């Protein structure tokens, strides 16, 4: 059963399951002690129990359909936790400078925060870590604003989850969590949808254009010019035209990713070695056959950098667009920080964004590795600088000894 299920069906099914699970939960009676939501007419009052059950149901899908794989994954995670202290210790022993550097940076920041002048502003210009992850993080509960959303015919209300400090309620740690989750969700949904559309359409266009040489030669100049136009500077203009909404943000991010990828894909198609194409042609392959079986796969390895670059651009566009005109999202949180000249808040947002973007890059890289599993591992003959530098030193030492 596991083998027969096509991977894409599995992933699409998981998404559908994720969206359908809350409806399933609604079918349960609301009298059982754990699930204490109240659904009146078309209004659903969401509780923590509801969210937790939803999260648990989310994991049921892979666990049922890929039982063996899930168990293996769990075992691996367990082993990872068990080995973590030992690996950390080993890492510290092998590469102490890594830890020393970070420790010095973190402690140095704290020292600067004490030494630096207070300034006349409400918040310190260089906030200490206690200030960042204590007071400032706690105050972020004020960003928990989501009262209700309407999905199709259903209205979902969140007011039972935590009080809204923005409306005069108390500040609470759950609200901090909810605020960060909500704004992250907004940012990630904009980014990922835009990125997905941009990647798909960009690679498709980039592969299609060079198929017709006339089209390729015609498209070369305008596409390269479009790529050089600083899209970040166009955000104020696009915001006015497209509006500060999901559709506008997605269209904008997708456009930026598209431009980057079309040019990169056209270049990588051009860089497929001629010998592969000529070999295919002399083996009797027609033009379309050569294109799909030789040029398309042959152009893939070069796309890695372009993928990562476009993901980076996507992130910058998302955060910048939110910064300049959206009422939600991590970029918006950063813009509040600038308005308040609150560096501490900015540190938190930057940290969260850095974590997410690291994750996006990692996942893109993994996906890409699967796509080009046929590729030879990094060709031999490259220099390990440290070794060579060491070798040069050793050679000199040898000469000195002999002398």
């Amino acid at each position: 059963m596991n083998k027969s299920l096509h991977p894409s069906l599995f992933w699409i099914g998981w998404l559908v399951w994720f969206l359908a699970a809350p409806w399933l939960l609604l079918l349960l009676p609301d009298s059982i002690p754990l699930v204490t939501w109240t659904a009146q007419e078309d209004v659903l009052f969401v509780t923590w129990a509801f969210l937790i059950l939803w999260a648990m149901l989310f994991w049921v899908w892979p666990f049922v359909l890929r039982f063996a794989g899930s168990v293996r994954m769990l075992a691996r995670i367990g082993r990872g936790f068990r080995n973590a202290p030992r690996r950390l210790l080993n890492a510290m022993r092998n590469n102490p400078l890594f830890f020393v550097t970070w420790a010095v940076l973190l402690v140095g920041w704290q020292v600067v925060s004490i030494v630096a002048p207070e300034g006349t502003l409400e918040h310190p210009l260089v906030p200490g870590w206690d200030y960042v992850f204590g007071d400032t993080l706690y105050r972020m509960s004020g960003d928990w604003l989501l009262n209700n959303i309407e999905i199709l015919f259903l209205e979902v209300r969140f007011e039972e989850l935590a009080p809204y400090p923005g409306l005069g309620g108390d500040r609470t740690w759950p609200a901090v969590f909810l605020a960060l989750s909500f704004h992250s969700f907004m940012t990630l949904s904009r980014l990922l949808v835009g990125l997905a559309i941009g990647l798909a359409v960009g690679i498709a266009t980039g592969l299609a254009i060079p198929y017709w040489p006339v089209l390729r030669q015609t498209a070369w100049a305008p596409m390269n010019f479009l790529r050089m136009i600083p899209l970040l500077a166009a955000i104020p203009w696009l915001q006015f035209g497209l509006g500060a909404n999901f559709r506008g943000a997605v269209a904008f991010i997708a456009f930026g990713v598209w431009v980057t990828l079309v040019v990169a894909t056209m270049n990588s198609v051009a860089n497929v070695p001629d010998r592969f194409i000529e070999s295919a042609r002399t083996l009797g392959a027609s033009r379309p056959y050569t294109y799909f079986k030789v040029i398309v796969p042959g152009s893939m390895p070069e796309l890695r950098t372009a993928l990562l670059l476009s993901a980076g651009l996507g992130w910058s566009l998302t955060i910048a667009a939110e910064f300049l005109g959206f009422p939600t999202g991590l970029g918006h949180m950063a813009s509040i920080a600038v308005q308040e000249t609150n560096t501490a808040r900015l540190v938190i947002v930057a940290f969260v964004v850095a974590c997410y973007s690291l994750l996006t890059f990692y996942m893109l890289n993994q996906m890409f590795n699967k796509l080009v599993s046929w590729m030879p591992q990094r060709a031999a003959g490259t220099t390990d600088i440290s070794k060579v530098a060491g070798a040069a030193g050793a050679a000199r030492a040898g000469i000195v000894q002999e002398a």
Partner: protein
Amino acid sequence: MSRVVTFENLWCVFEHRSGQLVNALQDVNFDVQSGEFVCVVGRSGHGKTTLLRVLAGLQPPTAGQVRLGDDVVTGPGADRAMVFQQDTVFPWLHVRENVEFGLRAMKAPDSERKEITNHWLEAVGLTDFADSWPRELSGGMRKRVALASAMAVGSDVILMDEPFGSLDYFTRRNLHDVLLDLWEESKKTIFFVTHDIEEALILADRVILLAEGKLVDDIPVTLPRPRDEDIRAGAESVQITKVILQHLGITEEEATKV
């Protein structure tokens, strides 16, 4: 034996980077009989590869034409499969998929495709590696894959452009045997470009000599096969070597000095 390939008044002129025109081929005329093993020999840069690429249809001639039977060559096709000097095994296809590439392109029926592929994989001794990635094979093995791929498309004429040039001596000798076996079994016409006179003497029925893009000599090699060390050290063989060296501008004395 019937005539399969004809070169008629073939000219090929290239533009050098500096803007100068260079004659890669100058008025080449000759024809080849079916089942012949022809070696094209010459110094590098004297038109050997161009000749082969024109025949393959990868390079249009500036003047003149190449005919295959009665048809003028206008582009590449499966009737003239080519083995290249560089590594052209597709790294994104398994070995088996590489060998059946041409057959798939021609939409051969599944059963026939499998049969032919297995046959040629066995002929080059790679049955056990059918499901490997090319990156897992050595250079010599990848050349065998390229050879099998070219053989499998079923063309009567096979073009080889210094295919074994980058291999070490022992692998090369080994592949010569494989190639000669395949040739004797299939009786295909083979064009083999090389700068190695010894290689030409091991393989060829006939040596075409090119110098500065001109055909300078056409030498039949009638040595008996298999051509072991004794035969290649014999008087006839040495005589052919001398002729070739003279034509290439290396006199015997010069040759020994080098």
